[in-house]
């Protein structure tokens, strides 16, 4: 019985074994075939996917913690050419949804998307259609995609139906400026080519983390940890949002009222060098920074306070007088007989009104802003001492302010090929020397701050890896003594009071000096247009602010005392409120208690 059926088992065994051998042979053949090699190569292509990790750029805050520059998620929108079903639908949706973007709101955009989406798949399977697309716009695209899917759910496979399949998004963070134009001259920006301005450019290395591009495996069993991409450092600036807004508003109104071409106001704490506000025109909405070319046309500087030098005129006399008093070349009660003309180096210096002012003490010289007197003071000081003091005041050098785009100005000194003896006379009253507003603010801060000159700075602190590092104020030099600083402050405060200056603020004793400067041209100095300036600080016994005003080519009046001094007054009226500075008598009373 057993023998009768045993061949069947043998036959079955042989059949299974043969099948197994056939399968093994086939597997081996497939594995070794050229097609297998192609598939293996293709599989490596799909085995990894490119991930780009961009760390969040550090935020920028004002001194009270208001966000001035933050980040917002935006999307790069592209197409996976392998998955596209309807290039027409994709082109239609993209051109409709991105109407708000100037660069995509063009008649050609539909065609360009359609052409890209219709491209035959080759080695390139991903193509970018748009970037900086907002979250809301992506949400609309997703909604439309879902609606198309629901609407044509019952259509036969292979039917040509509208579909957004194939659209892909890559999220990344983009800069966002909640205050729009406010402080735009300070904040600056970095364009897509990596060129920038302001704080954004100066601290770019600190704020920008390092972008990493990594090929991550697509096999879920080989999922890898995200690489550690540290965020950029956040910055806390010294500026006060409210002071900045007020100063910008005052500047804009002043430009309108005086018909000036442009203007700049710098507000600084003379004791620390902290910039509390820095307004300049024109300004741009940083959320649309790419339009800066149309707003800052030609050689218009991005921030006049640091990037444009000019001949300051009589505000410079503060430095000349400080040097002369400090060196002993003159004393407060030294008198000078103003005959209306002073010869130096072969040229004749005249006063602003071409008049002779007779016997004047140093206060009279400053109060009436006498060029003749100051040229004489300069000559008493001598070129060597005068230029040594000016260099100690930082004239002709970068202040070192922590913002991109600062220029050093120009101070010709003896030994330079274009320096003449007459320059000593003209330089003494602010002609023939080029300075930036921030340079002047820094130099004059020495007079307001017991002779100590502080480095102007915009960075209060930075936050790195969870810790806040506060920046300490730095003394850059002590060009004059504390006594000289006090004497000159009192002299300038008395000058303002005696001339009933437009700069005075009731209840507050301030010191300051006007400036009206002719503008040099290739054919000499023009007389019809001027640069009007004012520098002042207060309260004089405990200075909390120093304000520098510059109006370029005002048309209603050329004089600094008429157009720039009232700007100082308006700024100070807001400053004392915003900085909680009581009137002098109240403050003295409170201090006694």
């Amino acid at each position, binding site marked *: 019985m057993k023998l009768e059926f045993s061949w069947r088992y043998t036959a079955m065994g042989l059949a299974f074994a043969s099948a197994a051998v056939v399968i093994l042979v086939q597997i081996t053949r497939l594995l070794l075939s050229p097609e297998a090699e192609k598939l293996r190569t293709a599989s490596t292509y799909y085995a990894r*996917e490119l*991930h*780009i*990790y*961009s760390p*969040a750029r550090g935020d920028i*805050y004002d*001194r009270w*913690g*208001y*966000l001035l520059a*933050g*980040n*917002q*998620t935006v999307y790069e929108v*592209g197409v*996976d050419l392998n998955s596209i079903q309807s290039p027409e639908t994709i082109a239609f949706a993209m051109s409709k949804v991105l109407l708000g973007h100037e660069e995509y709101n063009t008649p050609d955009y539909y065609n360009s998307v359609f052409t890209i989406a219709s491209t035959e798949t080759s080695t390139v399977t*991903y193509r970018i259609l748009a970037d900086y697309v907002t*979250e809301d716009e992506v949400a609309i695209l997703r909604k439309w*995609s879902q609606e198309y899917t629901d609407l044509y759910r019952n259509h036969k496979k292979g039917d040509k139906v509208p579909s*957004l*399949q194939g*659209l*892909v*998004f*890559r*999220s990344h*963070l983009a800069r*966002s400026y*909640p*205050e*729009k134009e*406010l402080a735009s001259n300070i904040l600056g920006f970095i364009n897509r080519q990596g060129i920038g301005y302001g704080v954004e450019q100066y601290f770019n290395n600190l704020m920008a983390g390092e972008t990493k591009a990594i090929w*991550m495996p*697509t096999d*879920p*069993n080989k*999922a890898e940890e*995200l690489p550690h991409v540290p965020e950029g450092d*956040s910055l*806390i600036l010294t500026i006060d*949002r*409210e002071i900045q*807004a007020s100063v910008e508003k005052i500047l804009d109104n002043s430009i309108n009222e005086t018909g000036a071409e442009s203007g700049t106001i710098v507000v600084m704490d003379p004791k620390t060098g902290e910039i509390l506000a820095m307004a300049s025109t024109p300004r741009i909405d940083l959320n649309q920074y790419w339009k800066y070319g149309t707003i800052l046309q030609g050689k218009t500087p991005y921030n006049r306070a640091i990037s444009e030098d000019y001949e300051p005129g009589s505000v410079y006399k503060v430095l000349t007088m400080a040097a002369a008093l400090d060196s002993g070349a003159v004393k407060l009660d030294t008198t000078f007989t103003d005959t209306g003309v002073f010869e130096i180096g072969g040229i004749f210096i005249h006063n602003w009104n071409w008049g002779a002012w007779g016997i004047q003490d140093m206060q009279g010289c400053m109060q009436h802003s006498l060029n003749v007197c100051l040229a004489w003071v300069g000559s008493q000081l001598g070129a060597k001492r005068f230029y040594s003091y000016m260099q100690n005041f930082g004239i002709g050098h970068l202040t070192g302010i922590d913002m991109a785009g600062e220029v050093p100005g120009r101070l010709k000194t003896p030994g330079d090929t274009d320096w003449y003896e007459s320059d000593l006379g003209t330089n003494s009253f602010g002609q023939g020397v080029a300075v930036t507003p921030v340079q002047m603010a820094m130099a004059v801060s020495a007079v307001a701050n017991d002779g100590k000159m502080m480095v102007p700075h915009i960075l209060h*602190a930075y*936050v790195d890896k*969870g*810790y*806040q*590092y*506060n920046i300490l104020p730095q003394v850059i030099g002590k060009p004059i003594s504390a006594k000289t600083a006090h004497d000159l402050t009192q002299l300038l405060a008395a000058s303002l009071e005696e001339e009933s200056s437009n700069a005075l603020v*009731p209840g507050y004793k301030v010191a300051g000096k006007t400036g009206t400067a002719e503008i040099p041209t290739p054919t000499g100095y023009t007389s019809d247009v001027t640069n009007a300036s004012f520098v002042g600080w207060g309260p004089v016994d405990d200075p909390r602010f120093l304000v520098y005003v510059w109006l370029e080519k005002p048309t209603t009046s050329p004089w600094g005392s008429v157009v720039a001094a009232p700007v100082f007054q308006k700024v100070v*009226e807001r400053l*004392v*409120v915003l900085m909680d500075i*009581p*009137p002098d008598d*109240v403050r003295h009373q*409170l201090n006694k*208690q």
Partner: protein
Amino acid sequence: MEHVQNLTQAYSQAPWRKQLQIIGVFLLVLVTAWMVAAIYLDVTARAATIGREIQEMQVRTSGLDRIESPTPKDGRRLSIEELEQINANLQTKLAFMTSDEVMQKRAQDIGFKAVGVDQILYVEVPGYIPPQPVTLAPPPGPTSANAPMLALAYKESLIEWLRENTSRAVDLLKGIQP
């Protein structure tokens, strides 16, 4: 010889029992293998699912996200990076809503006016500390105070745990105070 035969006979098993034993052993091996395979399959499936989820999170923050992929509104889980992005977006949105321009307008709309220099009454408030610039993070200091403390149990392997406890036991036996 007869003893040997008797002994063999006494301890030999019936053929059906031998077959049963073989089948039993085979089934045991089969069931064990099946259990191992099932556990392996379960663990790898779960690992793959989690791996896929992690990859999807990574795709959403740094890779290419398809239009048909689920969104937070569909109840998907969010990665830390996504949460950070959402927080950054919300912070910026809040800053837009409280910008100086917006707040000035809101204040004006409800009747506030900017106070003038002569409209302020100053009074002394004992102990009043004027506002100081913002502090967003602690100053740098001793690092140990803020260092993350992760329990050893989350970091050490079984072998390390055994080695550590063995050496501690040996130290105790030697009379070394911990």
